């Protein structure tokens, strides 16, 4: 196992609470000070942050590396799009959203049943999920009449929020999609924090540290893994749902490249830290937007190199560095943290 022990987040000190409030305030007023393009961009990055957070729940907290996490992101987006197309009446958006969360959850339940009860764990789980990503990508392309094949899914009615029939607002509106991303991010982060601190979260941690010992203590290891996997994949589906108003539904969402990207975001931000998922997703995507237009190939090369370096020398990622003992001691001396 990794030589890094992931400590529970410290009980929120004053500095932490101040930073959190400042970030939230900034997110709320951002549309007032930025252009529509920038608002759309930040909204998209936040959605990717939720996606990364859902991976961190299983990778960082239960030690299961999912190389096929994009399957569930894509499944959420596709389920949403297909349902929007199939249900052309007011209020259908909510049903489509529900489908976009439940379908990936169901998929995860079936896939997880075979893998966890088949005792596929550790590196093998990564490998099998990688193969399944390839299969999922092919399934999307083969079922062209339902999914639009290579061209992606389009032509579905505009998703609308609000009160059906009375007061409806378009989800395509830059501010609406941005604020749904903000609400989703805060909600998912709060939910994840609650989950990992609950008794169930402790059981997950026990499995990550020593699977055999946890089983010996009477925990049903495959069942617990299946539950956390399903929750995480439902959250990935939700991020896919929130992505629909701001992006295109294309087979790329399910590709191996997308699964790799989300691993990189979590690793860079700091696995097992929850907030690191957002920091990683925001940072990597922001840099990518800055640089990629000019150097697509070189950018990916740098991402790969950086990923290797993070794994080799810096397993805690950015947040791990921020929580480093020497930095904490420095802050403590100045009375900034408890």
């Amino acid at each position, binding site marked *: 196992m*990794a030589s890094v022990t992931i400590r529970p987040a410290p009980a929120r000190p004053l500095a932490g609470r101040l930073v959190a409030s400042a970030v939230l305030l900034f997110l709320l007023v951002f549309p007032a000070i930025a252009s529509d393009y920038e608002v759309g961009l930040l909204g998209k990055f936040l959605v990717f942050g939720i996606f990364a957070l859902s991976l961190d729940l299983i990778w960082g907290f239960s030690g299961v590396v999912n190389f096929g996490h994009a399957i569930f992101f894509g499944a959420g987006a596709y389920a949403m799009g297909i349902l929007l197309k199939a249900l052309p009446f007011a209020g259908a958006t909510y049903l489509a959203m529900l489908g976009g969360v439940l379908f990936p959850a169901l998929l995860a339940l079936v896939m997880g049943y075979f893998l966890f009860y088949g005792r596929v764990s550790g590196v*093998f789980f990564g490998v099998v999920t*990688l193969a399944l990503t*390839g*299969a999922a990508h092919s399934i999307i392309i083969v079922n062209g009449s339902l999914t639009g094949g290579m061209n992606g899914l389009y032509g579905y009615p505009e998703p609308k929020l609000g009160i059906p029939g009375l007061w409806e607002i378009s989800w395509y509106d830059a501010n609406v999609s941005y604020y749904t991303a903000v609400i989703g991010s805060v909600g998912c982060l709060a939910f994840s924090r609650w989950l990992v601190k609950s008794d169930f979260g402790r059981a997950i941690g026990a499995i990550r540290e020593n699977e055999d010992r946890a089983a010996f203590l009477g925990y049903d290891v495959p069942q617990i893994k299946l539950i956390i996997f399903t929750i995480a994949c439902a959250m990935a589906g939700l991020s896919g749902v929130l992505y629909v108003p701001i992006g295109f539904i294309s087979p790329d969402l399910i590709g191996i490249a997308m699964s790799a990207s989300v691993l990189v975001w979590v690793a860079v931000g700091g696995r097992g830290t929850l907030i690191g998922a957002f920091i990683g997703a925001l940072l990597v995507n922001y840099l990518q937007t800055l640089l990629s237009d000019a150097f697509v190939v*070189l950018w990916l090369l740098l991402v*790969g190199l950086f990923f290797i370096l993070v794994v080799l020398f810096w397993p805690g990622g950015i947040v791990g560095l921020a929580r480093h003992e020497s930095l904490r001691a420095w802050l403590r001396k100045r009375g900034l943290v408890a």
Partner: protein
Amino acid sequence: MEPVLIQLLNGLSIATILILVSLGLAVIFGMLGIINLAHGEFFMLGAYCVATATAWGVSPWWGIAAAPIVVGLVGMAAQQTIIKPLYRRPLDTLLATWGLSIVIRQVVRLIYGSGQMMAGSLITGSTHIFGFGYPTYRLFIILVTAAIVALTFLLYFRSDFGLRIRMVIANRSMAGALGVNTQSTDLWAFGIAAAMVGFAGAIMSPLVVINPEMGLEYLSRAFIVVIIGGIGHLYGVIAGGVAFGGAEAALSFYLRPVVAQILVVLIAVVLIRVRPQGLTGGSRG
């Protein structure tokens, strides 16, 4: 009769290449306990060796000769720099080699561009077996694979080096205490495995689409072969390869190739649930 025989040969042809690709993977996993996600890229590099030879206007056979050396050296460099420090962290090796695969793909893109490359044909024409023609080159691949598998088994079970490998697998620290240089054994085992898959890429190059992404497809299939065959057994690779290749060829007879490939992966997942120890394994772990 004829379609059945052709399907049998097709199945054998898929199986041999899967075996060739998976063999190195199985050795590396069995020995170092790590999974090399850059394995597919080593395959791709092998194919690019032949494509480069073709582009330079020299005989593609030079490419085939160069592939094991070039890819073997790349593998040894990777072993020294990113795999050795991560011995005790198998999950992190998975990630680091994944990063390596991204780097290799992008370096190839920088040098050759994203487009497809061509490999010159090596052996053309067809040979008559039991009264019908089958491409000679595919028969050649089947024979070469059989030879390499035999060689690997000889190396593994009959040579001093194979003995050292098996000692390291059985008990790393004890092997070290008995005077086996485990580090150089690791290095050479990794190098040989990389050379093997590089060679596989090279001899497959005239039959496949050569582009920087090609390795990914073979990577996941090779892993499925190793897992359904039974991890930790060299002959499990052969069982897995034959089962996988046979299933794919049989299903391709009735269905579109893409659908057949999806089905095989799904069947494999169900198989893992039913027989977690693989086809050949008695018990795992």
